[in-house]
C-alpha cells in the first residue's frame, strides 16, 4: 500500500472545507516557544525539533500528556508502561502504517523526527528500553 501524505492532507482539507490550497504555503515565522520546539511551524509536515516536543504537542492529543491514554465510547491505549513498546519495530510500524482509527502520523515526520519520538516514548512514562532506533530504521518502516 502506498499512500502519499499530500493526498491525505488534500482529501481531508477538501472535506473539512479548510482548503489547504487557500493558505499561503510558507509557514508563519517562529514565535516565542515555537522557535525552540517547532510547534505551530508546520502545515502538512510536523516542525517539532525533539522527541519530547513531538510527544507533548502531537501524540498527547490522543494518548494524553501523561501517556495514560483515555476511555470514552472507545479508548486510546496508554503508552505509559506499555509492554508492546518493547518491540521498537512495532512502534515505528504503527506510526508509519496507522492502526485502526489512528492515522499514519509518521508519514508527516522526517526519519529523524520519527526516530526521536520513538526513542522518547520508549524511555519515558515508565518505559525503560535501552535500545534506540535510528533514522534509518524509521525510513525502513515507511511503506514501500
Amino acid at each position, binding site marked *: 500500500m502506498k499512500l502519499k501524505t499530500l493526498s491525505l492532507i488534500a*482529501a*481531508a482539507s477538501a472535506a*473539512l472545507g479548510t482548503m489547504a490550497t487557500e493558505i*499561503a504555503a510558507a509557514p508563519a515565522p517562529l514565535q516565542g516557544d515555537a522557535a525552540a520546539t517547532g510547534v505551530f511551524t508546520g502545515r502538512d509536515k510536523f516542525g517539532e525539533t525533539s522527541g519530547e516536543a513531538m510527544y507533548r504537542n502531537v501524540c498527547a492529543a490522543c494518548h494524553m500528556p501523561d501517556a495514560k491514554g*483515555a476511555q470514552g465510547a472507545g479508548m486510546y491505549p496508554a503508552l505509559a508502561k506499555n509492554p508492546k513498546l518493547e518491540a521498537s519495530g512495532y512502534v515505528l510500524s504503527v506510526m508509519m502504517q496507522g492502526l485502526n482509527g489512528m492515522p499514519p502520523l509518521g508519514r508527516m515526520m522526517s526519519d529523524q523526527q520519527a526516530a526521536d519520538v520513538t526513542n522518547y516514548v520508549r524511555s519515558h512514562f515508565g518505559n525503560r528500553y535501552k535500545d534506540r532506533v535510528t533514522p534509518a530504521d524509521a525510513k525502513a518502516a515507511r511503506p514501500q
Partner: protein
Amino acid sequence: MSQNLNPGMSKRDLLSLIGAAAGGTAMYMAMGAFDQAKASNFKGPVKLDGRAKGKSVLILGAGVAGMTAALELGRAGYQVQILEYQDRVGGRSWTLAGGDSYTELGGATQQVGFSAGNYINPGPWRIPWHHHGLIHYCHELGVGLEPFMQVNYNAYVHSTSAFGGKPQRFRHIQADYYGHVGELLSKAVNKGALADTISKEDGEILLESLRSWGALDKNFRYVKGRESSNRRGWDKEPGGGLTAEPIPSQPMTAETVLRSGLWRSIAGNLTWDHEFSIFQPVGGMGEVAKGFERAVGKVVRLNSKVTAIQQSEAGVTVNYLDTKSGAKMTASADYCICTIPLPILAQIDMNVGPELAAAIRSIPYSTSCKVGLEFKRRFWEQDDQIYGGISYTDLPNSQISYPSSNYGAKGPGVLLAAYTGGVPGYELTALSPQERIAKVLEWGSQIHPQFKSEFVGGVSVGWHRVPWVLGCFGQWSEEARAEHYKNLCAMDGRIMLAGEHASYYGGWQEGGITSAIDAITRLHQHVQAA
C-alpha cells in the same frame, strides 16, 4: 456589467464560447480528483415497496445516518430501535450554545457561556445546495435553512510573509489577480504566442472574454480606472451631491499579487462543495438533530454503550451498558444497521467476516479542531464592514468565520476563530481548552487587533478528543478505497454499516444519509427475497 457580450458576436461565436466553457467544466472534473467532488446519489423520497414481514432492525448510533434509517424503515413497517452512546441524539450534527457543556477525553469540561442566540457548530456547519438528501429531510422535518455566506469579498486574506503581515481584502486580491492574468494572457494572444493553439477567430473571442473577465480597459490593460475600480473598489466611493465624483483606486502590481501567495484563497470558493447556494440551519446544525428527534426520538435509547455485536442464524444480539446505571443490557433484532464510527467499532467485539473486519480496522480518522470565541460586540461588522463569510490566514488557526445571521445585532457576537486540520489540528487538540483559546487570541489579533480587548469567552473542540468518535471523519486513501470500500458497505450476514465513513462524502452529513438509504434499500430487498 452583465451585458458584456459583443453585440456583433455571431451565433457561431457564441457556440464557441459555450464550447470553451464546457471545456473548462470538463477540465475541472478531470482535476477534481477528490471523491468528494461527486454529486449526491439521493434520488428523491425513499419508497420501500413490499412488506416488512414483521422483521425488526436494531440501529446503532443516533446520528443522521442512524436516524434516517430508523425513519424510513419505520415507515416501511419494520420494528426499529436505536441505541445511542451519548445523552443526546445527532452525533456530529451538533451545536454548542450558551448553557451547553462538553467534556473531552482527558476530562476537561467546558461550560459554554455564550449569550442567547450565539453558537458554534463543532462539526458540519454548511449544506451545499446539491446535498439533496439532507435538504430533503430539512424541508420535511421543519428545519429552517438560511444562506451561509461562503464568500465575502470584503473579508481578509492574510499571510505573515506578505504585505508586512497586514491583512488584505479578498476583493483586492481576486480583482488584481484576475486583472493581471487577463492582461498577461491578452498580451500572449496579441503577440501570436497562442497561434499554434487556437485559431485567429477564437483568439479574438478569447480577448473579448479576457476583457470581460479581468476588467481590462479598451487596450486590454488592467490599470487604475473605472473598469478595475468597479471590481476592487474605489479610493473614494461614488456619492450624491457636489462631492459625488468617485476616485479610482490603484491596483497592485502583478508581481505583488503573485508573490503574496494570497491568490491561493480564490480557488477554494470555486469548488463544487462550496459554491453558492450554500446553507446553514437557522439556529445551528443541532436543529437537524432536533428535526430527526421529533420524527424518531421515541425509538432512541440514550446512554447506551455498545460492548458486543453478535449475529447468528436466528438474528443479531447486541450487548450494551447503561452508562447512567451501569447495568448490563441486551437488545436483539432480526437485523442490525451499525453507524458507529470506525475507530470505536474497531474496538467492539463483533462476529463478522474477515473482509468487513479488515475494512473496519483500515480507515484512519482525520484531525480537525474548531475554536469559537465570543466578543463584546460585532467589531468585524462595525469596524471592518464584514458581514458573514470567511477570512483566511497562514497562521495555524487557518480561518476566521463570521456569523451568517443576525447582522447588525448590538450585543455580543461569536466567531469561529479557528478551524484547522493537518499539523496545527493535532497541535491545537493536544493543548488544554484554555491554552487553545490563548493561542487563537494571539493569532486572531494579528488580523483583528480587537480580539484581545473585546474577548469574552470561548469553547473549543479538537475532534481526536471527542469521546464518541475519536477523530473527525473517515479518511479514505485511493488504495484503501480500492481494497476495502465495497467490503465495508456489503451486507455481512445480518449486519450492514452506514455513516459518512460508508460513503464517498467524507465528513459530510450527506454521506451519512445516502449511505443509510442505500443500506436500508438493500436490506429491504434482502427481506423481500427471503
